[in-house]
């Protein structure tokens, strides 16, 4: 099956700093999503981005499908951005494979 690697595993930032999270995957995909898991465990959809670039406020994401990676950018980080960020990919309709996540801590 598809392998997904996320980096870095942990990231600590001061409020206001910018960060880049990376997701590498081992095969072609037609579904890629970024999620934020908040401290209560809820998975929040950030982006559905099998290719291209999208932006939503302070967050943006880019997927380069031909090179099998995706990047999530967080600008001007806030304490509420803390949590675990997951990348999930699927090769066809059906199950997604999740990476192990990046745990982000934003300090005031």
């Amino acid at each position, binding site marked *: 099956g598809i392998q997904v690697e996320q980096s870095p595993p942990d990231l600590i930032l001061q409020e206001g700093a910018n960060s880049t999270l990376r997701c590498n995957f081992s095969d072609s995909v037609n*579904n890629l999503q970024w999620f934020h898991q908040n401290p209560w465990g*809820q998975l929040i959809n950030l982006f559905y981005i*099998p290719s291209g670039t999208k932006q939503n406020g302070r967050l943006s994401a880019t997927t380069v499908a031909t090179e099998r990676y995706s990047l999530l950018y967080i600008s001007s980080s806030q304490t509420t951005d803390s949590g675990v960020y997951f990348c999930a990919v699927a090769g066809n309709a059906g199950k997604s494979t999740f990476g192990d996540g990046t745990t982000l801590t934003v300090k005031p």
Partner: protein
Amino acid sequence: GAGVSQSPSNKVTEKGKDVELRCDPISGHTALYWYRQSLGQGLEFLIYFQGNSAPDKSGLPSDRFSAERTGGSVSTLTIQRTQQEDSAVYLCASSRVGQGYEQYFGPGTRLTVT
């Protein structure tokens, strides 16, 4: 509209007992997924239902686990003879096939086997 709902939110059970976990997908979503997340880990795929097709059960860890989906909507995940290693958060997701399979997750059921 309403999101994916799951019940119960928490379940504590004794080793050896059977448990049933319920998932109500978003109305109109034809695909439904079950995952589980052990403490501090990523999500592990369990089973996937799509319309009237045979479910993809390739992620079920043992024959103690089963799931059904009635009427193309509500799904129940059943764990028989629970073991302590079954303790985890069980998450359900649904998607509207035809719009890129973007999955939306419920809040999960936290299962603790004592």
